[in-house]
């Protein structure tokens, strides 16, 4: 902008300022960014912000969580269903350190969040003051960006930068630590200006057309092309572009657990789940395809298995917005840097319209084997104890794939990701990269606030539920409608499975006892029921879904049931075991 001109404008129209506290400026900024819900917990060092919040109750809904970790997971759930930035408040010291797990989870799963922590007065920094902790340094490895504010005048610009960084490029969590004096400090507020660029930050790499060209040539000449997609598709709001690409090329597509739902489960070209407990065909065919097209995924070790035996025969095309992901685990023959919302249409324009009936038939054959050996027994056992798979299958029948399904971590998570049906994007909310037990219940609360018109079902194991069950209090107080389904096998099932398969059945500290979950729910005024018989299942699930308000259904399932197929750690994806 021309400086002279700017000065003239300033002279004729002086900027109107109002004298406000740093706390008020913060809340005004949050409203300007479109925030409607905050998950938080007050405390000494964040009291001025909470005091200001008292006057903003009509504009900003505050959900009082029962532990700050629950606040971060709720923020994640909210961000994942709504596509907006999750906002979390916590106080200094223990409040701030309790955020670390959620931040790490959001960092590795690219979830946009802005966490605000209170901090001791600036003049007390470094003195071991009451509830002082060096939150900036503690959270540096688990945030995309963080910043400490000691002067109120910085609040509007830093908040704007925080939101911009959290949601642009590859999204991630940002933490702002605000000293108490800055929250109290009065200053001349000039209004809120959103941030649209940071000079040292390139959220989107420039798209290099020659690589699009090369990728298209490879795809057009491929006999056995195979698409792997991850959360990048939904993070980039590129579901339509992705579908168009898949349908024009006729290439079978398989998903990572965070990618699930970016294309509907029953789309004819959706061939299933990748990875350690993924489907048979997608894993084996990774080592049979000739061109591998990875879209918005990062070749996590749980997806690739043994790297030196991973897709060595294939030419690899890797589309990703984050240059640090290219060649990190799997070398790309053609790297396509960029936002897939932009790169996919460019690629779709250059590829030939094709079908691959024979290649697709190979996937169907693998699927048939998997159906016979694994899926049929899992979904329709007929006799014996209930299986996790048949519970999820029955849930599909009732929700028709319309629900948001939130999971915790472990066997039930793998079973749910394998069998849950998703018609829509942003419907599978799970902790992928970090594998955080305790994620499910608080994430489900946030997911419902992020998608209030949708049914939210939380599928949680008996172990993970006991890690964050205090959030039943949040459900009680906020009145949020979450259907909680505990799949209770009286074991820390995934660890038990590994101990059975790889440690001579030495079940070391995996037998976990549980309280009466239904009574527990009842003490929080949440309705509930416990079942263990097959003939109760449909009725119980129907009652849960039809119940007005939250409901807890505990389903007793087989105690020593294993999740298969499985790529044992250190094995190649083509060495996947069906039993």
């Amino acid at each position: 902008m021309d400086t002279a001109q700017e000065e003239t404008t300033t002279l004729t129209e002086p900027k109107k300022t109002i004298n406000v506290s740093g706390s008020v400026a913060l809340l005004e900024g949050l409203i300007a960014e479109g925030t409607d819900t905050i998950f938080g917990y007050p405390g000494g060092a964040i009291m001025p912000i909470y005091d200001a919040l008292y006057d903003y109750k009509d504009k900003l809904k505050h959900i009082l969580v029962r532990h700050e970790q629950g606040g971060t997971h709720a923020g994640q759930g909210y961000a994942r269903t709504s596509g907006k930035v999750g906002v979390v408040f916590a106080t200094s010291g223990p409040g701030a350190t309790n955020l670390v797990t959620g931040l790490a989870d959001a960092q590795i799963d690219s979830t946009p969040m802005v966490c605000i922590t209170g901090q001791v007065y600036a003049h007390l920094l470094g003195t071991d003051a009451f509830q002082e902790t060096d939150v900036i340094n503690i959270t540096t490895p688990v945030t995309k960006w963080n910043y400490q504010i000691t002067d109120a005048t910085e609040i509007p610009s830093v908040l704007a930068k925080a939101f911009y960084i959290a949601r642009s490029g590859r999204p991630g969590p940002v933490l702002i630590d605000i000293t108490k004096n800055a929250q109290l400090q009065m200053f001349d507020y000039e209004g809120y200006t959103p941030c649209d660029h940071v000079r040292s930050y390139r959220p989107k790499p420039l798209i290099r057309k020659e690589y699009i060209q090369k990728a298209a040539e490879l795809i057009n000449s491929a006999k056995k092309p195979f698409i792997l997609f991850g959360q990048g598709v939904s993070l980039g709001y590129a579901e339509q572009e992705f579908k168009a690409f898949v349908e024009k090329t006729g290439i079978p597509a398989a998903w990572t657990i965070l990618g699930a739902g970016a294309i509907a489960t029953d789309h004819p070209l959706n061939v299933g789940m990748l990875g350690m407990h993924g489907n048979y065909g997608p894993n084996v065919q990774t080592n049979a395809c000739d061109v591998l097209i990875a879209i918005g995924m990062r070749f996590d070790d749980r997806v690739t298995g043994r790297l030196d035996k991973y897709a060595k025969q294939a030419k690899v095309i890797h589309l990703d917005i984050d240059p640090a992901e290219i060649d990190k685990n799997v070398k790309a023959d053609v790297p396509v840097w960029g936002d897939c919302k932009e790169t996919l249409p460019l690629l779709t324009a250059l590829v030939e319209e094709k079908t691959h009936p024979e290649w697709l038939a190979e996937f169907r054959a693998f699927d048939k084997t998997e159906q016979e050996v694994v899926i049929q027994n899992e979904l329709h056992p007929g006799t014996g104890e209930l299986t996790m798979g048949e519970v999820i299958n029955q849930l599909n029948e009732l929700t028709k794939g319309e629900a948001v399904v939130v999971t915790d971590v472990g066997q039930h998570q793998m079973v749910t990701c394998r069998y849950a049906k998703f018609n829509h994007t942003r419907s599978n909310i799970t902790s992928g990269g970090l594998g955080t037990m305790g994620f499910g219940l608080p994430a489900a609360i946030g997911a419902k606030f992020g998608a209030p018109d949708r049914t939210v079902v939380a599928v949680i194991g008996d172990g993970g539920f006991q890690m964050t069950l205090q959030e039943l209090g949040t459900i009680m107080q906020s009145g949020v409608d979450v259907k909680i389904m505990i799949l209770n096998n009286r074991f820390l099932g995934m660890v038990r499975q590994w101990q059975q398969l790889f440690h001579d059945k030495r079940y070391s500290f995996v037998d976990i006892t549980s309280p009466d979950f239904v009574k527990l729910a009842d003490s929080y005024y949440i309705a509930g029921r416990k079942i263990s018989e097959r003939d109760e299942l449909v009725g119980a699930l129907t009652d849960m879904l039809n119940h007005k308000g939250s409901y807890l259904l505990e389903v007793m399932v087989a105690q020593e049931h294993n999740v298969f197929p499985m790529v044992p750690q250190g094995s190649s994806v083509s060495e996947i075991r069906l039993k």
Partner: protein
Amino acid sequence: MSQDTELTGKQEFTITAYTENQIGILNRIAIIFSRRKINIESLNTSPSEIEHIHRFNIVIHETEEVVRKLCRQIEKQIEVLKVYYNTNEDIIWQELALYKVPTDIVAERAPVERLLREYGARAVVIRKDYTVFEATGHREETDKLIEVLQPYGLIEFVRSARVAIIKDSEGFNAKLREFERKDPGHDVIENEYLDKEKNVFSM
């Protein structure tokens, strides 16, 4: 190529990073190495030719593949503008060393003039009780002068980190000036509360 390089594929790399002058960026960069248990052999950070932009020189011993991944992860940090990596063949580098020795011994027993000439050193301070020499060069060169001065009662020695110029860089200076022209750096707000013991209550 050294024997070590042939065995492990590891060699010395100099990483050059341009960053904003921001509190905490040193930590953000350092943990990218420590997270992979990589030791930083030498680290220099100082203002570049552009106000508000700093230049890091980091020396590590690693394989090129790992160095490339590290550089991408450093460049990903919000406040990092640009990162390069180079082998020793690609750069001109220097380290500065200071040597403090007792003046009487050096004057009496060591042929000072010869030392100065041979090692390209110069005397920075000459006092009655001690003399401080300065030498610049590669590690081996400054190391040699330690050996030579040790018998003469070396009192103290200090060496700077490596500073390096990339031989075939296409003038990053111009690019930096472009950054600055488009969006001048913000002044860091000094923390007025740090010095003020305000009469405040605390909970």
